[in-house]
């Protein structure tokens, strides 16, 4: 049992230094709806870490869900931790304060499991910083038999290879059932004692969706290419099939969302109305790896919202998914919720709404209590040709009609998200972003001279398990040139607000997104050289990453700038997202050769991406099935 004094709360040492760091509220815990349990009465203890600042990590749905699922077990403790900001890290190192949890302020080593949620690559350097501050060996091979088990999960974990040496276990896919099964093994490990790491891994690897990097080895050709990642133990699967929770109504989490005491990036009670997406946007990793679509019923969502609003006091309800207006019962759901909260200060939001799925009825339901704050759409590309390539099938007519609906219904400000650096992109496609923005603004002007449009532009990073996984990525210099084209085109109009990200972090994201195990040395070296908070402009330093890559002999351009060969082995091939490689390839070819579109398979015939039969599942929606007759 972890009862040594070294595992007691660090709060007495933390409290005196808190006024010397920025935003001390990040570190105090004490939020509404947290679960504080007696460690001595538990037989497994989890520390769930989101490796970014508190205000970014706290609203994360994945952490919230697993926190509740684990804590519902009476003898399991789950607490949370977040990456300390750089000023806090310096103080912690000076005062020898280890990485701690927020619930009981216990050090990382007081926990049996340290599980990181990886939404994106920008958290990798922080992940190492958290482990290092926690006094846990960075490399799994250096951990003692009774050291905590380090787990990663989340979307970015679908290519865990750049982190492979640092983690004991990877969760492929949905975590709800997975963590409970891991928890059983952890309890047995702690109860029996005396297991060596090998034995622990052998038990963990039996869990479906479990990937133990230590049991696999990457092989490279003489030319430096990857031959593949192969199991090195008998009984270990060649490919690890992802976990998929089939019935979301049976997992109605979050039930009691944590209510932060300080401002975070999303202040609302959020509920996923469905998981998965079938729109088939070729750049979108989330849409590909979360298939098939699994809807929550109107009744479950209503129940969750009623309880969630009552026990949090949040003033906003977010109906989350990858394309919320696509829920088969969206109008009924929004109508019922609008009825329930009419005349109150509770507002509804649909954070991801398709341009072509937005309509007046939905608009009315969302604004019955009078709030018409900004409305955001993501056409993603500026020309019809480019949108065909990425399979984001939104026509200009759709966009303008939607703008008309929105401005006519009282919205004053539309935000439009775009990407540049897409495969086959020309300068004409880039300028098309400005043209579309200006046309939308012209529609807005007809409804009010001061109506505004914000065009937000990000650089495209090719992601694993998508049709674009073969694509070459633009250099930051090229992205900067394309941004220049846009800036010159829209400079004249003050009501069109152009926002863009620094293109430099996309180099690091590209390296980590499609990197192999050799890239892990870059991550560790970058951490040692001081890389932290790579998602923050004020912290990110591409120079550190370039230097780290040089020092360990990794050629970043080989990973980012190179279009992949058709039959090239990928570092993530052994993680089975359910998508057939042949289908991804043919969809990539369809994109670059003909720019041909693919229908949404929720309501049109199946095109055999491979997910449903592999998982013995079908889309679970209220839409009527359409039979292909084949």
């Amino acid at each position, binding site marked *: 049992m972890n009862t040594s004094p070294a595992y007691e709360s660090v709060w007495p040492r933390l409290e*005196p230094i*808190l*006024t010397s760091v920025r935003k*001390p*509220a990040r*570190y*105090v*815990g*004490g*939020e*509404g709806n947290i679960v504080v349990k007696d460690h001595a009465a538990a037989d497994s203890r989890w520390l769930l870490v989101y490796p970014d600042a508190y205000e970014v990590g706290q609203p994360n749905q994945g952490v919230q869900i697993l926190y509740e699922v684990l804590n519902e077990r009476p003898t399991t403790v789950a607490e949370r931790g977040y990456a300390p900001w750089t000023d806090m890290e310096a103080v912690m190192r000076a005062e020898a304060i280890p990485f701690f949890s927020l619930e009981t302020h216990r050090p990382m080593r007081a926990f049996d499991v340290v599980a990181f949620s990886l939404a994106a690559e920008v958290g990798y350097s922080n992940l190492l910083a958290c482990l290092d501050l926690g006094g846990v060996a960075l490399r799994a091979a250096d951990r003692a038999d009774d050291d905590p088990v380090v787990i990663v999960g989340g979307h970015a974990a679908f290519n865990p290879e750049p982190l492979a040496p640092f983690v004991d276990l990877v969760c492929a896919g949905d975590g709800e059932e997975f963590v409970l099964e891991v928890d059983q093994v952890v309890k047995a490990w702690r109860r029996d004692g005396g297991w060596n790491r090998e034995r622990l891994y052998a038990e963990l690897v039996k869990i479906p969706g479990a990937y133990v990097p230590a049991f696999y080895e990457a092989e490279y050709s003489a030319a430096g290419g990857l031959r593949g990642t192969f199991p090195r133990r008998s009984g270990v699967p060649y490919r690890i099939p992802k976990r998929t929770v089939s019935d979301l109504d049976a997992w109605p989490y979050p039930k009691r969302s944590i*209510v932060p*005491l*300080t*401002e975070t990036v999303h*202040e609302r009670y959020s509920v996923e109305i469905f998981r998965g997406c079938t729109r088939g946007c070729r750049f979108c990793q989330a849409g590909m790896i979360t298939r098939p679509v699994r809807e929550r019923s109107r009744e479950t969502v209503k129940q969750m919202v009623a309880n969630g609003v*009552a*026990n*949090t*006091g*949040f*003033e906003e309800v977010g109906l989350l998914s990858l394309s919320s207006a696509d829920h088969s019962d969206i109008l009924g759901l929004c109508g019922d919720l609008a009825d329930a909260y009419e005349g109150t*200060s509770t507002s509804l939001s649909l954070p991801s709404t398709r341009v072509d799925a937005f309509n007046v009825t939905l608009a009315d339901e969302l604004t019955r209590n009078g*709030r018409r704050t900004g409305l955001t759409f993501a056409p993603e590309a500026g020309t019809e040709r480019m949108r065909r390539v990425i399979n984001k099938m939104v026509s200009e007519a759709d966009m303008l009609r939607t703008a008309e609906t929105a401005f006519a219904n009282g919205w004053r400000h539309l935000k439009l998200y775009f990407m540049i650096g897409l495969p086959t992109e020309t300068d004409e496609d880039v300028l098309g972003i400005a043209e579309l923005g200006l046309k939308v603004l012209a529609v807005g002007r007809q409804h009010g001279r001061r109506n505004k449009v914000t065009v937000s532009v990000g650089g495209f990073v090719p992601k694993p398990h998508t049709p674009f996984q073969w694509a070459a990525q633009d250099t930051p210099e090229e992205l900067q040139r394309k941004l220049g084209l846009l800036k010159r085109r829209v400079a004249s109009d003050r009501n069109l607000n152009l926002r863009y990200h620094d293109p430099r972090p996309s180099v690091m994201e590209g390296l980590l997104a499609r990197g192999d195990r050799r890239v892990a040395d870059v991550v560790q070296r970058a951490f040692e050289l001081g890389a932290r908070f790579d998602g923050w402009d004020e912290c990110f330093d591409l120079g550190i990453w370039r230097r780290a890559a040089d020092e360990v002999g990794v050629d970043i351009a080989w990973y980012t700038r190179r279009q992949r060969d058709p039959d090239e082995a990928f570092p993530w091939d052994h993680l089975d997202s359910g998508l057939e490689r042949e289908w991804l390839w043919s969809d990539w070819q369809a994109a670059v050769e003909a720019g041909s579109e693919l229908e949404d398979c929720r309501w049109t015939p199946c095109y055999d991406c491979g997910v449903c039969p592999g998982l013995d599942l079908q889309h679970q929606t209220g839409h009527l099935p359409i039979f292909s007759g084949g």
Partner: protein
Amino acid sequence: MAASDTSSQAPADQAPRGRGDTVASRIRVRYSKTGKLRFISAIDLGRIWERSLRRAQLPIAYSEGFSPHPKVSFTDALPLGYASTGEYAELTFAGPIPLQPAITALNAAFPEGIAVRRAVAVADGDPKLATWLLASCWDVAYPTGADLTAAVAATGQAESLPVARERKGEPVTVDLRPAIHQISVHGARVRVTLHHLQVPVRPTEVDLALRSTDPALPPPALVVRVAQGRPVAEGLVEALSGELVEPLHPIDMRLPT
């Protein structure tokens, strides 16, 4: 609690402010902000109030306009890191509500570290809350073992108490003396009552003045605003209860007023 340790009933002519109504639609409250909540900023505190009111299902009134705000107004913000048993707020409800059940529900909904200690009804035409809050009584606790007796004595005898301050980026020297109503000490604890001036004097500046007589002084471990109200010769009359908050004993250094 520090305030009740040393409080006693004030003379009859210093009766509690506010009305004794048990049902009201406008109320003033004294609340505490302690423990982990002392690291929460004033802006964040407003949101905590709003959400706690919603969780308690109290019918708080909302302002009109494009983005309605709950009608909760706060008096001067407590600096980050200080604890307090003497913060004040005024709340307007959509209609009259029974006071005591409302406060019970609200206290159950607050996160740990914030609690309403007293509530009084107000009516239209009553003086503004700020007019009741003329001074703050602060306890500055130094680490156990420190003895502030000599420093407080020296400070109490000083003609003036110049401390350095920054004003619009320029270093200036201000005299704390006019702001100090009373200062007293008991071992490691200093109690100082500060008048609310146009430019407020903070307990950190009193610490600076004490430090000038004893440079080896360790930094204060905790600063607590005990109460706010009206300064009188015997101490401070707390605004909502009329209770007297007295200086510390046994050593009681009073500056002439």
